[in-house]
């Protein structure tokens, strides 16, 4: 199982890919210091497009569908949260907006 130590900050290309996937679910008003915003992101994904959740985890871990399916949903959520924190997702979103990569 990919644990905390297996998640390292992404390179620029993958980070931009992650930014593109996650940007519809992020708002600039979110507070980076609290993890509450991750719950808001997950809730929005649940409403709009569940596949984005797995795609984001795949980008952050380089794991295949099959590898992820073997994990417990709580473990996947832990990876997701850790991945977003490690990659400073709100800063990434702001960087993407600054470049006009995402709107």
């Amino acid at each position, binding site marked *: 199982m990919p644990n905390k130590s297996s998640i390292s*900050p992404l390179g*620029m290309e993958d980070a*931009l890919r992650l930014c*593109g996937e996650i940007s519809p679910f992020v708002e600039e008003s979110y507070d980076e210091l609290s993890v509450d915003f991750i719950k808001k992101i997950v809730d929005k994904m649940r409403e709009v497009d569940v596949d984005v959740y797995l795609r984001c985890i795949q980008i952050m871990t380089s794991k295949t569908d099959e590898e992820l399916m073997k994990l417990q949903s709580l473990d996947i959520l832990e990876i997701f949260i850790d991945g977003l924190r490690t990659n400073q997702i709100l800063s990434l979103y702001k960087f993407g907006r600054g470049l006009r990569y995402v709107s």
Partner: protein
Amino acid sequence: MDRLREKTIQIGKQGIRLERFGLQRWMELEKLSEAVYEAAGVGNPHDTAEAIYRYLTAASGLSHEYLSDLSWMDVAMLFAEIENLNACRSDLPILRVALKKQEKAPWDYPQREWYSMANMLAAAYGWTLDIIAELDVDDAFPLVQEILTDEQLRREWEWQTTEISYPYNKATKTQEFRPLPRPEWMIPPAPKIKNVKWRKEWMPVGNVVDLSGMLDAKQKLN
């Protein structure tokens, strides 16, 4: 003007020296920066990342291999630091006008913008290419604006001494002066329209009847 000419930033254990470039390299860097924003606007992560690496390699000398091994945070920090260090701080009308995309002239070639600017500065001040290449952009752009202003005012003077600047107006049966059009950056901004307070009781009441006859004309046409 006091400007920061260079800066060293720390990426991991390595100190990376960044510098503010002279006009020629600044213009090359600006082209690479445009390519970054163009690729980002299309939303292609691979092309955007590659464009950022090309920009950083040109500005810092760091290799593509080194940059692609860095985290996005380090790359973004390098990008922001270089952009900030090389930012043009002159607030000039000529820079405020949005450039319209022009079709390339048949005599266009790579680096024409640099040679065009160098030609202008060399003709005005007699400087050599080496001196112009090392000019700070905060000095170069005001000088270019001054050259263009002088040129426009000279043209306006010449224009008003010719007959075509006084076309004949058939309605008034006189010749009226028509000034030479000025470039957009020389035209003063239009004054803001003042907000007029309108009282509620001044609004029309009851049925609104169109008496202009336009409605009938429209119906007849249909």
